[in-house]
């Protein structure tokens, strides 16, 4: 029995690496002197360990699906690819935290510890194969997130963000748990597979209870990926948190939540037609509302962090359209979108972070005339903004194209039109920022200190996939297409 459990551990190396990393970081943090150089070493160690984790994940990518720890965890190509995206996002955020002034010097390694902790929660969520694991993942992810958002302790906006996050998070997790308990009551199991086998036979009151319980359960996930109407916390938390944390929140919890949403939708809503119809309808409405609310509200923002927060809501709205189709193409579209979105978001936050460190603000004004100060960075930022808006030849277009195409394949033209109009709205606010950056006159010859050669090199390296995947996207599409989600 014990031996068998240890045997399973070998399939679980990436997670184990992360746990080891987190604990050793804890020890190192208290043992090492508070000097810049030693901080650098700690960050370097964290990045190296995450690269090891990434290496094992890439090794796992082609493997057959596995169910370990008594069916509590699934290791399938789908979860592995989601984990790769999350690990890359975490590495990006940790690297940013090192140079960002938003994270106090004595908290840099704490940021890394908590980021890895959230990552572990996210990995658990992506692999969850029963309700308990799922809930554990959700909570691991959330609790450390609350702490992360208050890392800028002596600023009231940061503590406000933390409080809002914890209140919202606590409530929605409670509602989700309430839903899960009812699901257990009706279906008599917490194992996804066993629960799913009981679904086709349901009718009458039980069906209604199950449907309502799933909606309650969706509150928990919906709040993590910040869909309408559970998105209210997003702008405030994004704005209040230090920028590396915001960048991290925009990627890791979202991808984890999206993975859980996909898995749950696939397991539970393909068998029973009544459930399927209601779930698809719900997702359509939520997607349309999320896109519209996110994009329309983004127009009026004057803070770039808030702009990116609302735009991320818009992007999630579009991604959810990949869920409604409940087929492999939908999963593929979401995974491709996730990969591209991760790169775009990281670059946008990197550049915003360096500018906001320089000027102490993240309003549009700090971007003014960037083209005259740092032409390369301004061009890359403009490219990312156009990519986020879904303009070819950038990869954002391919991502959008894929989502559109899965929706239109299902003949859901109405929602396709809603999405089309939304992408015009989105273009408008991205263009406003691009306009400030490129058409605005520079206020002087001030060089932005954050754009050191190393940082610029990282930004350029992150931009390569944004451009490359817009033109030669077949390889990554095949990888995303192979990352099938196993539901048995």
């Amino acid at each position, binding site marked *: 029995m014990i031996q068998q459990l240890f045997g399973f551990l070998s399939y679980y190396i990436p997670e184990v690496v992360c746990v080891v990393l987190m604990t050793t970081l804890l020890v190192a943090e208290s043992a090492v002197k508070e000097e810049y150089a030693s901080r650098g070493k700690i960050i370097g160690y964290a990045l190296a360990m995450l690269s090891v984790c990434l290496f094992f994940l890439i090794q796992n990518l082609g493997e057959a699906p596995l169910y370990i720890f008594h069916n509590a965890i699934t290791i399938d190509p789908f979860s592995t690819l989601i984990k790769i995206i999350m690990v890359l996002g975490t590495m990006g955020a940790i690297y940013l935290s090192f140079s960002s002034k938003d994270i106090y010097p004595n908290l840099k390694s704490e940021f890394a510890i908590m980021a890895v902790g959230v990552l572990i929660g996210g990995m658990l969520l992506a692999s969850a194969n029963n309700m308990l694991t799922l809930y554990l993942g959700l909570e691991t992810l959330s609790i450390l997130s609350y702490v992360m958002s208050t890392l800028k302790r002596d600023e009231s906006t940061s503590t406000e963000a933390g409080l809002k996050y914890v209140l919202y998070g606590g409530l929605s997790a409670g509602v989700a748990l309430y839903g899960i308990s009812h699901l257990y009551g009706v279906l008599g199991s917490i194992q996804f597979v066993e629960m799913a086998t009981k679904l086709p036979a349901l009718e009458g009151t039980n069906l209604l209870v199950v449907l309502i319980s799933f909606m309650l359960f969706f509150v928990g996930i919906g709040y993590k990926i910040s869909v309408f109407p559970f998105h209210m916390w997003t702008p405030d938390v994004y704005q209040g948190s230090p920028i590396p944390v915001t960048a991290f929140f925009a990627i890791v919890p979202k991808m984890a939540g999206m993975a859980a949403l996909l898995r749950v939708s696939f397991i539970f809503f393909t068998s029973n037609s009544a459930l399927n119809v209601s779930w698809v309808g719900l997702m359509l409405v939520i997607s349309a509302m999320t896109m519209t609310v996110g994009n329309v509200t983004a127009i009026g923002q004057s803070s770039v962090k808030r702009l990116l927060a609302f735009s991320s809501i818009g992007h999630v709205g579009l991604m959810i359209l990949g869920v409604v189709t409940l087929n492999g193409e939908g999963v593929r579209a979401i995974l491709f979108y996730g990969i591209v979105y991760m790169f775009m978001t990281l670059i946008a936050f990197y550049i915003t972070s360096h500018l906001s460190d320089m000027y102490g603000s993240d309003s549009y004004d700090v971007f003014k005339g960037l083209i005259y100060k740092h032409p390369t960075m301004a061009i890359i930022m403009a490219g990312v903004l156009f990519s986020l808006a879904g303009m070819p030849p950038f990869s954002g277009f391919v991502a959008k194209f894929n989502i559109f195409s899965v929706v239109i394949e299902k003949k859901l033209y109405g929602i396709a*039109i809603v999405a089309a109009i939304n992408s015009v709205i989105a273009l408008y606010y991205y263009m406003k920022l691009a306009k400030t950056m490129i058409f605005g006159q520079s206020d002087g010859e001030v060089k932005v200190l954050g754009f050191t050669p190393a940082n610029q090199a990282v930004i350029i390296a992150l931009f390569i996939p944004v451009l490359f995947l817009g033109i030669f996207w077949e390889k990554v599409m095949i990888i995303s297409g192979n990352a099938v989600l196993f539901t048995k």
Partner: protein
Amino acid sequence: MNGILNWILWLPIIGAVAVVAIPNAKDNVIRWVTLLTTTITLILSVVLYSKFDTSTAAMQFVVKFPWIEQFHINYHIGIDGITMLMTFLNALLFFICTLSSWTVTKNVKAYFALLLMLQSSVFGVFFSLDFFLFYVYWEVMLLPMFFLIGIWGGENREYAAIKFFLYTFFGSIFMLVGIIALYYASGKGVDSFSILAHQGGKYVNETVTIFGHTFSFEHLFFWFMFLGFAIKVPVFPFHTWLPHAHVQAPTAVSVILAGVLLKMGTYGFLRIAFPIFPKAAVDSSTIIAWLGLISVIYGAFCAMAQDDMKKLIAYSSVSHMGFVMLGLSAMTVQGMNGAVLQMFNHGTSTAMMFLLVGILYERSHHRWIVKPDGSKGYGGLSTKLPKYTVVFIIGMFASLGLPGLSGFISEALIFLGIYQKFTTITVIAVVGLLIGAAYLLWMFKRMFFGEVNPSTEKYEDMNAREVFYMIPLCICVVVFGIFPSPLLNVMKASVGQLVDLMAKF
């Protein structure tokens, strides 16, 4: 010989890369490299014309290889008679624009690099035979335009750039929905993204349900595509972006915008909207004709009311593109030939007008025919600038359709084509010609005749560079006015094929 299209398409990009690589201070080297690139492109397009087989409607110089095999997306380019003319026009106008941009001093490197990228993406739109490739070029073209208007434009350039961008993007996103719908309607097969494979009215009997209402597949997506192309043309009521974009854009960009970019809209009708949705196009031809008519008359009246020369020419473009729409709606041999010819002729004559406005602007730094305070902006130019006046007269008369110059032939063909189908519209449309003559002659009178305005005393006449780049356009306007057959022969087969197709529905 097949590789020649690739060269035309990618040479500007190579030029743009070269321009970017040149150090900032060497403005003149940048200008000469750009000129060299556009000259070679022009020569290649002439070579292309000489090798072009006018007897067939099939695509020529085709290059095709897989790009994204999973989706059956190909890098598929080729030209037929219609695109042959557009290719030549595009190569010619960019050559001329490089020369006319010699006086640009702000960020010379970025300016010429963007100009070359714009040229390549416009070629891409005309060459693409794959929907995905077409859409990519169609959108990519917006980026250099956005920056060219936004950085080098006039006072209100930011507003104009954003309006232009958003408007076009709005239209094209609906086109994207249409393209994807076509992809699935054709069954995701090998040719699902091939523009040619969709042609011929294959979707006449299909239906589409949106929010519980059933629509005909053909009609719905015809209007989706219509939206995308009509905004580009622009057809009334989608024309509101055009005056802003033109007035704010630098001279060369205005020339390109009016000369080739507007033609992409009508080209879209010819290559995509009409042949793929022929039944819907035939059913909607009356609406298209009326919209074209409104564009003709409304554009002409708007032009008459302008005190700003550039705005006047911009509205005259709306009016002249309305004639193209009229010709298209006829769906007869004369009408279609006239429309395509008008696309070319409007490209040359309107380019002349915008260049002339630009030349005068460089001397006076204003474009007022009548200044806002009521005083005359210019006056008596004919005595001071004789060479300028001669070129202006040629351009103006070509534009208003004087017999013997190019505009007349295309407009006459259009009227011949639509008279039998839409008699009333023809009669009203002729009035548009009259108004056109009125506003152009009136502008001419106010600027060139009368007392010499004190402020115009010091102006120098056109210099050698300016004369040099106006000559090819003057030749086009005069020669094709008397002898249009080199143009008509090239497009005859392709237009004929389209007319035959439309006649079946």
